[in-house]
């Protein structure tokens, strides 16, 4: 999961104040939505002023599923969009616990190995890719030490791994880890 903190203040006004407030909670601001050329563009995609009962809703919390082949949720589905008209020292711990439950409900596709075969000295198997994720193929001879064979940066297409020297390696255990 990636957590992106967006400061909505203009650079020449209260931006520093908001940065300092968040830094007090050991949170680093990641992005701006108030630049010389854009003004609250992303906020307005979710919570435009006046449409949700407040002239200017704040703060706004949004979670988006960017797992491209999740079996439980669609790609780029909005998991939650919540806003509050509070500010200052409001405690959001209750809301955060609710957000966590919603986010944890997203299932990732399991990287199961299929089509396992050994033909003419070539051992191969297939596993599902996932856009934006790296699949690390590892092998072991004793289930204890695992050695990286290759890293495959995933698309949604299936990935086939081949070991063309399988007969020279009489005992190997393979696994795939999604990083």
């Amino acid at each position, binding site marked *: *999961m*990636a*957590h*992106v*903190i*967006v*400061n*909505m*203040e203009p650079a020449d006004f*209260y931006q520093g104040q*908001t940065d300092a*407030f*968040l830094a007090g909670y050991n949170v*680093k*601001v*990641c*992005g*701006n*939505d108030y*630049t010389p050329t*854009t003004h*609250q*563009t*992303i*906020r307005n*995609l*979710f*919570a*435009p002023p006046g*449409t*949700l009962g407040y002239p*200017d809703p*704040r*703060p*706004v*919390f*949004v*979670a*988006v*599923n*960017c*797992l*491209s082949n999740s079996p439980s949720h*669609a*790609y*780029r*589905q*909005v*998991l939650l*969009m919540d806003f509050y008209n509070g*500010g200052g020292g409001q405690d959001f711990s209750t809301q955060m616990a609710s*957000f966590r439950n919603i*986010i944890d409900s*997203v299932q990732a596709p399991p990287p199961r190995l299929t089509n396992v075969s050994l033909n003419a000295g070539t051992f191969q198997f297939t596993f599902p890719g996932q*856009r*934006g*994720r*790296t699949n690390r193929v590892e092998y072991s001879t004793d289930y204890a030490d695992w050695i990286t064979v290759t890293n495959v*940066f995933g698309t949604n297409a299936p990935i086939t791994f081949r070991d063309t020297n399988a007969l020279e390696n009489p005992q190997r255990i393979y696994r795939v880890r999604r*990083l």
Partner: protein
Amino acid sequence: MKALRWSPSLRALGLLAALLFLWSAPVSSAQPFTAGTIITTNFGLQNRFRWTNDNSQIFTPSNTTIRLSDFDGKIVFFSFFDVW
């Protein structure tokens, strides 16, 4: 069945009413994304500092744009602070 015939004055009145309706109709705008909907735009925001993701992809310093597609493979949680 008898066809309805509008006199010229009725037609003018109808046209005026239609124009008034169109003029008073709210300007159509995109609906905001709410929970459950699918985001159809690859929106971006201005990056504030140098950082990397788990795949060691480096996002360059400020004045560059991070797009939603940069978070493929993850769940991304946005917190917008101080929106007034």
